[in-house]
C-alpha cells in the first residue's frame, strides 16, 4: 500500500512536471521600432534560455498598420497572445473584454496595489478595472517641439530667445523660416502630426476652453468658439491660408532627423532623440537641435500641453490560461529593463524607480518633457475613438484643403460626433 502510494505520488509529480514543461508558443505583435527590435529579440533569447519550453514569435508591423491588422485578427478570433497599441486604440479591446488581466505573482509583485504603487500616479488608470490590471506600460509618451537651431540662425533668429511660446508666434516664426518655390514648400518652419488629432489638436481646443466630450460624456464638441478658433488657425496654416504646411507633405518628424533643410521644427516624443542618433549621428552630436515646450494660444484659458499617451502590453483574453500566464511572465521580464529601454530606445516607462534614477536624470531635455507632462493629461479614452479621430481628420482636411469654412466643418463634425455618441448609448 505504502509502495503504491509512492508510485502514485511519482506519477503525479511526473505528470505535473510534464504539464509544467509542455510547450507554450506565444505570438507577440508589436509596431516597428528599429531601436527596440534588437533589445526585445535579446530578451526573447534570454527568456527562452530560462524557460526552454516557451517559444516566442515576435512579429512587427508598421505603426500605421498595426491597429488595422490587430482589429481584423481579433475580429476573426485569431489575435496574437501579446500586443501593444496606443492606448486610445487599445481602449476598445479593454472595454469589450478582449484582453486578460494579470495576476500580480506572474509579474513579480504581491498585489495589484503594489504594482500601482510602483508606477507614477494615474499612469495605470487607463488599464485598471475593478481591482484588476489589464496592461503594463511599455512607454508613456508626450510630444514636445523639436527645433533645428541652425535654420533659426539662418533667418536671423536666436533659437534660445526667439523660439515660439505661443501658436501665434509659431505661425509668425514659421513664416520667417519657410522656403517656397512659388507655392511649393521647400522647407517648412513647423508642421503638425496630422492623423493624431487626439494628442495635439484637442489640447489646442482645450487651451481655448473647449473639449471633445462634455464632462458627463453625453455631448460631443463643447464650446463652438474654441473649436472655431482652432479650425480657423488650421485653415490659415494650410495651402489656402498662409501655406505653411499640409497633410499632403511628408510627415515633418520623418524629415527632421536628416537635417536636409526640409523642416525646422516638428512635434514628436522623447523617442525621437534615439532616432536622431540612429539616423544621423553627426546631427545628434552637433548640438544643433533642442526641445521646447508645447505652445499655447495667446489668450488661452487653460495652459495645456499635448496629451500624453501610452503603449501598454496586453494579453489576449482568448489565449489559453497557460499561455496568458507565460505571456505576462515574459512581459514582466522585458519590462524589468527600464533603463535599457530608456537609453537604447528612448522609451520612458512611468516607473518611479526609473524616474528617480541617474539614467533618467542624464537624458537630454528630460526637464522639458517633464514640464510638459506636468501640464498634460492622458489622451481621451473612448470606445469610439477611432471614429472620432476620423471625424477630426475630415474636419481639419476640409478647412485646410477642401475650401470648407470652419463653421461648416464644425457643424458637420458636431453632428457626426453626436451621432456616433448616440449609437454607443
Amino acid at each position: 500500500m505504502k509502495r503504491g502510494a509512492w508510485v502514485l505520488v511519482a506519477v503525479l509529480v511526473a505528470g505535473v512536471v510534464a504539464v509544467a514543461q509542455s510547450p507554450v508558443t506565444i505570438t507577440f505583435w508589436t509596431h516597428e521600432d528599429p531601436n527596440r527590435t534588437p533589445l526585445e529579440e535579446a530578451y526573447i533569447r534570454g527568456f527562452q534560455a530560462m524557460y526552454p519550453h516557451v517559444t516566442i514569435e515576435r512579429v512587427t508591423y508598421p505603426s500605421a498598420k498595426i491597429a488595422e491588422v490587430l482589429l481584423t485578427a481579433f475580429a476573426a478570433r485569431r489575435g496574437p497572445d501579446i500586443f501593444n497599441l496606443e492606448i486610445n486604440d487599445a481602449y476598445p479591446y479593454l472595454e469589450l473584454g478582449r484582453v486578460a488581466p494579470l495576476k500580480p505573482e506572474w509579474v513579480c509583485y504581491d498585489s495589484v496595489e503594489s504594482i500601482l504603487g510602483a508606477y507614477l500616479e494615474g499612469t495605470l488608470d487607463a488599464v485598471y478595472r475593478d481591482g484588476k490590471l489589464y496592461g503594463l506600460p511599455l512607454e508613456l509618451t508626450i510630444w514636445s517641439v523639436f527645433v533645428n537651431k541652425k535654420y533659426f540662425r539662418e533667418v536671423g533668429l536666436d533659437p534660445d530667445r526667439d523660439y515660439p511660446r505661443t501658436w501665434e508666434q509659431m505661425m509668425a516664426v514659421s513664416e520667417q523660416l519657410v522656403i517656397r518655390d512659388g507655392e511649393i514648400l521647400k522647407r517648412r518652419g513647423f508642421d503638425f502630426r496630422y492623423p493624431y488629432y487626439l494628442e495635439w489638436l484637442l489640447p489646442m481646443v482645450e487651451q481655448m476652453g473647449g473639449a471633445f466630450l462634455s464632462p458627463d460624456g453625453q455631448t460631443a464638441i463643447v464650446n463652438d468658439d474654441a473649436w472655431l478658433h482652432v479650425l480657423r488657425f488650421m485653415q490659415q496654416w494650410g495651402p489656402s491660408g498662409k501655406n505653411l504646411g499640409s497633410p499632403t507633405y511628408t510627415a515633418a518628424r520623418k524629415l527632421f532627423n536628416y537635417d536636409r533643410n526640409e523642416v525646422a521644427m516638428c512635434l514628436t516624443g522623447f523617442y525621437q532623440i534615439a532616432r536622431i542618433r540612429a539616423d544621423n549621428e553627426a546631427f545628434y552630436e552637433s548640438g544643433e537641435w533642442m526641445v521646447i515646450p508645447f505652445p499655447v494660444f495667446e489668450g488661452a484659458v487653460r495652459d495645456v500641453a499635448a496629451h500624453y499617451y501610452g503603449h501598454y502590453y496586453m494579453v489576449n483574453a482568448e489565449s489559453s490560461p497557460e499561455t496568458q500566464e507565460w505571456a505576462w511572465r515574459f512581459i514582466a521580464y522585458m519590462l524589468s529593463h527600464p533603463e535599457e529601454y530608456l537609453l537604447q530606445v528612448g522609451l520612458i516607462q512611468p516607473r518611479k524607480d526609473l524616474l528617480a534614477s541617474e539614467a533618467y536624470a542624464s537624458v537630454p531635455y528630460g526637464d522639458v518633457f517633464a514640464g510638459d507632462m506636468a501640464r498634460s493629461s492622458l489622451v481621451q479614452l473612448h470606445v469610439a475613438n477611432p471614429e472620432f479621430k476620423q471625424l477630426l481628420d475630415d474636419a481639419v482636411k476640409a478647412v485646410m484643403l477642401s475650401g470648407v469654412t470652419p463653421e461648416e466643418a464644425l457643424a458637420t463634425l458636431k453632428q457626426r460626433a453626436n451621432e456616433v455618441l448616440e449609437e454607443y448609448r
Partner: protein
Amino acid sequence: MRRKRGSKGILARRGRWGWAFVLPTLVLLGLFSVYPVVNAFYLSFFQKHLLSNAPPKFIGFGNYTYLFRSPTFWNSLTATAIFAGGAFAMLVGMSLLLAVLISSRQRFQRFLQLAFFSPAVVSTVVAAAIWLLIFDPRGIANQLVNALAGTPGVDHRWLVEPGRLQLATMLVYVWKYVGYFTIIFIAGIGTIPRSLYEAARVDGANAWQVFSRITFPLLRPTTLLVSVVAMIQCLRTFSTQYLFTQAGSPRSPIDVITLNVYYTAVRTFQIGRASALSIILFAIMLFLSWLQFRVARSEEVSYL
C-alpha cells in the same frame, strides 16, 4: 438497346470526369466568392460590432435604411460614379486605341505589348505609391505641367483639389490596367479574318472606314468582355483611394463605396452596415453587367 445503354454509360462516365475536373474550381469559388457574398448578405441584416464577441442583433433592413438616409453614402455613390465613369471611359477608349495602333504596326509589336502590359503586374499599392511621389507637391507632375505651361512654382494640388484628386486616382488606375485590356483587344483583333481587311482595301476603304465598319463592329464580343471586366474592376477600386487618403488627401472626393466599406468596418467597427454597403455595391455591379450584356446582345454583328 444495349448500344444505347453503352453510350449512356460513356456519357455518364465522361460527365463524372467533367465534374471531377470542375469540382475543385467550384469548391474554391464557393468558398472564396459565393460564401462571402452570402455571409455579407446575412450580416447586412444585423447590428454587429467588429471587435465584440457579443452575438449580432437582428435589425432587419435597419442598415439599409440608415445608409439611404446617410449623406456619406450618397457622397460615396457619387464618388464611385465619377471614378468608375471616368476610369472606365479612359480604360476602354485608350486600350482600344492602343490595340488598333499596336496591331497595325509591323515592328515592335511584342515590345509595345510588353511595355504597356508591365504596369499590370505591379501591385496596386506599389502603383499608387509611385504615383504619390509623382503627384507630391515637389514631384514630377507639378514640374512637368509648370515646364509645359510656363508657370514656375505653381502647385497644381493634385492630392488636394477635389477635381484633380479624382483625376489623379483615375490616372493611376488607367496607367495600371490599360495594358491589360489592350492585350485582350489585340487578341480580339487577331480573330477578325484578314480577308475582310483585304477586301476592304481592294474596295478602297480608308483607315477610319476599316476601323468603324470592320474592326469595331466585329470586336463587339471583346468590347463587351472588356467593358464588363473594366466596369467591375473600376467599381472595386480601393487601394489607390486608400493610399491617397493615407498620404493626406481629403477623403470626401475619393470616398468610393469600397473605401466607405473599409471605414465603416475598420474605423467605426460596424460590420453589419459595412456588409450592407458591399451588398449594394454588388447589386450595382450585377445590374451594370446585365445592362451591358443586354445592350451588346441587341447589337450583334456578323459578316460571315
